């Protein structure tokens, strides 16, 4: 699977935003049929989706479509084609949901003469149950190619009451990110053999981009084992693409271990070699 350090989310009906996103050279563009579109605009966006996907395919930009949810049948019907890299599906909260989605996608693929299982799915885990059942969700279907930590909506799910929600907004969430629970996701993803995407310690909410904080958040996410992030900001693309590479100081440290293996444990040398290999792969 190609590197997914920065996936740039744009409203699926905004050609100006799509053109601008393409110019930012993200690892993938996400045409959003969900939260960034007003409900009244979604039907028209679905109708024009195939044309926009074709235009992006001509530019060789991997394209994902973010649907409204695993039960957004109209979105799935509009999006499934041989020209997209996959779907981003929010609200997946159980393995059963993923299996149901898998079956639904197989039916659509069959109708369109596409190979069964060819539509990959990135599961956006943005609820408490989704994070809890992450391992089962990742292993419920061969389509799952990555999992994303949906920090913003997860916070709303966890916080619950309307009085608490305003305290969440901004680049630095004011509720403590429980690192035990959140650092579990890279473990789950590693066990399932898929990358975990996401950021810790910040949301990149529209209008709240803070480059200094984002760079730190990317580094923190990388340290915990996340491999990329979903963002709505063109300016965030380069920061993510750089930040989710293995940092230079880490590569140097790894090289010093590999060059003097007798001083380190076998697993320490393995760790260093894995870091160097990861640096080269991206």
């Amino acid at each position, binding site marked *: 699977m190609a590197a997914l350090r920065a996936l740039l989310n744009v409203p699926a009906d905004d050609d100006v935003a799509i053109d601008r996103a393409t110019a930012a050279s993200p690892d993938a563009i996400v045409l959003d049929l969900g939260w960034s579109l007003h409900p009244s605009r979604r039907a028209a966006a679905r109708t024009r989706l195939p044309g926009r996907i074709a235009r992006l395919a001509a530019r060789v930009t991997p394209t994902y479509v973010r649907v409204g949810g695993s039960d957004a049948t109209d979105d799935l019907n509009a999006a499934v084609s041989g020209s997209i890299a996959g779907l981003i599906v929010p609200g997946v909260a159980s393995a059963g949901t993923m299996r149901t989605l898998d079956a639904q996608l197989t039916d659509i693929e069959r109708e369109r003469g596409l190979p069964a299982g060819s539509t990959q799915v990135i599961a956006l885990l943005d609820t408490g149950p989704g994070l809890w059942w992450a391992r089962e969700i990742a292993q419920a279907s061969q389509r799952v190619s990555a999992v994303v930590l949906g920090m913003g909506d997860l916070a709303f799910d966890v916080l619950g009451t309307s009085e608490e929600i305003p305290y969440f907004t901004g680049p630095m969430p004011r509720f403590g990110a429980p690192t*035990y629970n959140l650092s579990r996701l890279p*473990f*789950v993803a590693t*066990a399932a053999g898929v990358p975990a995407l996401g950021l810790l310690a910040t949301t990149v909410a529209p209008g709240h981009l803070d480059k200094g904080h984002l760079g730190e958040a990317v580094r923190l996410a990388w340290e915990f*084992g996340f491999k990329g992030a979903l963002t709505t900001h063109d300016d965030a693309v380069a920061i993510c693409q750089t930040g989710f590479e293995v940092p230079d100081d880490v590569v140097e440290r790894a090289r010093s271990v590999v060059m003097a293996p007798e001083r380190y444990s076998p697993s320490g040398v393995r760790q260093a070699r*894995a870091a160097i290999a990861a640096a080269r792969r991206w």
Partner: protein
Amino acid sequence: MKGATKYYLVRRSKLVVSPLDDPALAAAAASAADAVVLDVAGLASTNRAAGLAAVPAAAQMLSRLGIDVLVKVDGAVAEESLEECIRPEVRAIVAELNTPEEVTALDRLLTRLEVRRGQNPFSTGIDLILTSANAVLDVQAILASAWRICSLNIDEESLAAEMGVMLGDRVDQLEFARGRIIIAASLFGIQSHGLGFVKGGVSGTETLRARAAMGLKFGHKGAFCSSPEEARLLNEGYSFTSEEIDHAQAVKDAMEDGLRRGIGAVALPGAGGAMVDIIMLTTSRGVLSWVDAVREKEEQRGYSSANRAGSPVAVGVE
């Protein structure tokens, strides 16, 4: 009310040495290590047979000094070779195993060998090292697969390699794994071993002692090490300070007195009115149980370790 756990296992420091390295064995014997791991798995394949053959004599020498002897093997060891390791002097086998099936296979093998050698079945423990993300996630099923597992560890660097990260000192990248095995070990009534995380700025010997002390705070009771000096530092780190011991004793005395008077929470004398309750009594009893177990171990080994808060006491083995 829950009574204090009596600790039968004191392995604050598990010193790893080659069974073929006589000077290292001699140094281990003279060290303060609570346990010595004869590392057969770390030998080149051409030396494994010689390493296994050296285990009986090394184990006998070390165990006479009150040192717990463990033998580290890997999956490639043949049943007939492992038989030499099954003896009263060898308290446990150290193995990197990541599935319930792997643990069950070793468990059954050990049982066969124990019976063959006339030893009590299940008298040889398993000191288990988890090296994969899947194993950390499946730890409950793994621990349920053999009750001879006496302690649980993670191989931090293997986990980091699998996740594609390198461990640093800015954040605890393995917080999830550490927490998970501590809780799982507690659930199954066994010890978890490992170092805690200390944020940057601590280096050298202080790092190891600080990491051990942090590990103790989280529930770990020991860790692997590779030199007698490291063993000494781990012993210090995994021992409570005199202040912590005094506090635990004060809490225990105050609460037990309160309970005799029918009170469930009391003000701790001389602590500015700080309240203590039954949960803190349980914790304090646990601290004092560990202190007693450590003292017993050190008496058995013929020394007393440095007190972290008081003046250093000479460490040595007679």
